[in-house]
């Protein structure tokens, strides 16, 4: 009996190791890169503790289901006249559950004509992608969308 249970044990661990792919085993270790930063800290660094309001002016486009987390197209457009008095100063893109939530900080000027930015991001797991917009009037607007990831992109 002992031998049987021993073999069973080996088979179980072997099977588990095969099923748990490197990426999953990796997330269990909770890797922290040198730039690891959580969402609250990242937002506070930008707003200085001021309140952020969700706004329909900010349009965030991302797929609802991403088959490959390594390449997720994200685009942000902000409804703004982009004049010298009233323009979007910055667009920040966050992936809320990556070890470093910051993806890109885009500093815009009135010369852009239109407040838009698009790129492709890596997502480790299913999570919210968030855009934080800073306007020249000192407002902080945000928009978020959930993206379901079938295969994670950080591993």
């Amino acid at each position, binding site marked *: 009996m002992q031998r049987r249970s021993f073999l069973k044990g080996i088979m179980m661990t072997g099977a588990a190791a095969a099923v748990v792919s490197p990426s999953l085993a990796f997330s269990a270790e909770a890797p922290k890169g040198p730039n690891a930063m959580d969402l609250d800290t990242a937002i506070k660094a930008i707003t200085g503790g001021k309140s952020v309001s969700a706004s329909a002016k900010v349009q965030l486009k991302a797929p609802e289901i991403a088959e490959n987390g390594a390449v997720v197209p994200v685009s942000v457009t902000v409804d703004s006249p982009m004049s010298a008095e009233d323009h979007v100063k910055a667009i920040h893109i966050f992936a809320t559950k990556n070890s470093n939530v910051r993806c890109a*900080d885009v500093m815009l000027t009135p010369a*852009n*004509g*239109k407040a838009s930015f698009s790129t492709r991001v890596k997502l480790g797991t299913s999570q919210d992608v968030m855009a934080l917009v800073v306007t020249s009037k000192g407002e902080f607007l945000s928009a978020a969308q959930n993206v379901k990831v079938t295969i994670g992109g950080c591993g």
Partner: protein
Amino acid sequence: MATKSLVKIKPKTYKVGDVVEVSLMVMHPMETGLRKDKETGNLIPAHYINDVKFSFNGTPFTTIKSWESLSTNPVYTVSYKVSGEGEIKVAFTDTKGDANENGTKIKPKA
């Protein structure tokens, strides 16, 4: 080491006052620093583009700070309002200090 990159304008024809999309595409590994080398088991150090500057005739109009969360071979697309003939230049630097520059000419149609 020169990094391969491309600057594109969309649409191809435009007039003064039109808003066009300027994209920068770079061939870059964008290593997160969390991935392991399969043979040695060591972590591959982080290596990503952290600074991108778009400028028109020497005047910067957009600066981007990016992090390792962007995909391999990243694309950065921003808008630009065409003000006249000139040249758009895009300078980008990665965490190893490799600085590159690429550009494209702006020729609005009358």
